């Protein structure tokens, strides 16, 4: 019998660590390794590696998400800025579809999803669907809290749209969020400017 099978506590601990992910697969693999007399050390290494892979974004997805996002922006969103009438609406709808596909197909790609969500909000804002756009802008921070730059742009866009629509109180909520989160020592030049503008709007 292998060392793995002689130490059931360690195996149990290892299974407990991984059971919330793919317990059946891990259990089957452990049994297989046990039969092959693989050491506890090797199994531990594999479990650590496996756990890491389970949480890390898929590199292939990163490329796919980037390609889809950029082709959507290039083929539909950018041309919509100079199109008019029904052609403009068609391009905006296709841009929205493309960004939604990024969100649906590559949910592990935090940065591309944040960009897509903000871009989708931009499309809705351009279509005049203000409340929907504001909700989407707000979702960027809720769903992608690590994407500081996307969050800053989203909150600023939301605030400016509301400000221009005369909904000053709602706009100030977003300006306040900007100040609360981004008024830090030694900010980057653009962040400093946006925080300063937000502070002015709150006065």
């Amino acid at each position: 019998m292998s060392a793995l099978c002689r130490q059931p506590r360690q195996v149990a601990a290892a299974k407990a660590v991984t059971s919330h992910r793919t317990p059946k697969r891990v259990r089957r693999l452990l049994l297989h390794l046990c039969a092959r007399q693989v050491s506890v050390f090797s199994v531990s290494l594999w479990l650590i590696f496996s756990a890491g892979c389970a949480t890390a974004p898929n590199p292939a997805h990163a490329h796919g998400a980037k390609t889809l996002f950029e082709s959507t922006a290039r083929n539909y969103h950018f041309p919509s800025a100079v199109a008019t009438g029904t052609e403009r609406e068609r391009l905006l709808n296709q841009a929205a579809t493309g960004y939604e596909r990024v969100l649906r197909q590559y949910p592990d790609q935090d940065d591309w999803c944040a960009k897509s969500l903000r871009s989708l909000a931009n499309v809705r804002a351009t279509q005049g669907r203000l409340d929907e756009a504001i909700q989407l802008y707000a979702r960027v921070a809720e769903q992608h809290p690590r994407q500081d730059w996307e969050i800053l742009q989203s909150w600023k866009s939301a605030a400016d749209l509301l400000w221009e629509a005369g909904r000053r109180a709602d706009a100030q909520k977003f300006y306040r969020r900007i100040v609360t989160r981004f008024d830090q020592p030694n900010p980057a030049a653009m962040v400093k400017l946006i925080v300063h503008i937000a502070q002015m709007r709150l006065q």
Partner: protein
Amino acid sequence: MATWALATTSFARINVVTLPDRDTVQLTIYNSADLTMVKETRHLTFRKGLNKLEFSWANTLIDPTSVEFHALTHADQVDTLDVRFPPRVTNTLEWHINSEVAGEVVCEIRYFTSGIIWSADYVAEADKAEKLMALAGNVRVTNYSGEDYENAQVRLVVGVIRLVEEIATLARPSERDGKDRDENGLDQSAGLKRKEREMKKGVDKLELQDAVHAEAPAEIIKEGVSEYFLYTVDGRDTIPTGWSKRLPSFQTNDVPIVSYYKFEKEQWDDKVIRFYKFTNDKPSHLGVEPLPDGDVKAFRVVTRDQLFNFVGATSVKYIPIGESVELELGEDREVMVQPTLMDWQKTNIHFDQWGGVDGWIIKETWQFAVQNSKAIDVILDIRRNFDGDWELKSDATYEKVDKTKVKFVRPLKPHAKELFSYELTTRYGTNVTK
């Protein structure tokens, strides 16, 4: 590609105006990080009142958080009121600028980008006697930033600015994901931005120095563990994205060199290696600035009509002002060193009380045949390494380098052959005296 557009408001109408090309572009490229500070100026025609200025960083490696706008003329009459992210496009910002003047304003945009790198290389051309050389420095700038830079002035930060290693991640948000938080999940990007600011301060300081001492030789800035130098490449050139450009940076003639040939069995086996040594100082017609690390190709004039022979290639590290550098140029078969063991004796053998050997002395006699097949004088530096309690006797002059190394320096006339020898005594065990 980064694009600009100017929109001026006139009641409800917005006129989008295509801007003229950049007037000047300056790239300050940091050697120790994939990071470049771009400063560009343009002459913009503002209307009195609100003007809108668009800047796009789509498909580039520009760090949008670092983008700054300044009016260089009428600075007190041009204010940035707001910055917007227009929803009709992505990766674009729009400055709302209030101008109290109607007319031309010189504006500057600054930002950081990654994707521009540089490397230095040198060509050394020694004269026939290997006493003087011409040294030419070149800089190769490679641009894959996604942005074309026309007619750009290139400046290189040579040396090390502390805390720059992580900066490259700033301009690559997609690669930054997850890296700008520490193990506790706290945001580290503020720290990185602080470093970016420190770098900018360093460059500002160097620029101030340039301005104050425009005619005086530039000085090296030393701060803490940093030592760096702002190196401006003469002239301007266009560096499109996806291209490399090799720009000449300096050309100096009559740099004195010491040419010599080294033999050290432990380092180069039986090969004789050629070296050129020169100093980065004023008497050598250098010493204006430190020389960045780079590859060196060396040539030597071999005929009266200036035909060159390839001597060798090597790479050099950063050469501060006043420092000497040895160029190791590879094997030269026209200089030969042949060591031969002529005699070997084991003497003074001592036995312990059980009859075992516990002390002895080895005496070796070595003869060296050296030959210069060149038509010029050469200096040959032969190094020998000895361990333990050793003693050397030779009619030839030698110098002790350290506890285990001696060197024989032999000047050789053209086509000369010489012999010299030495006797090495090495004591072991109970015979050791020191």
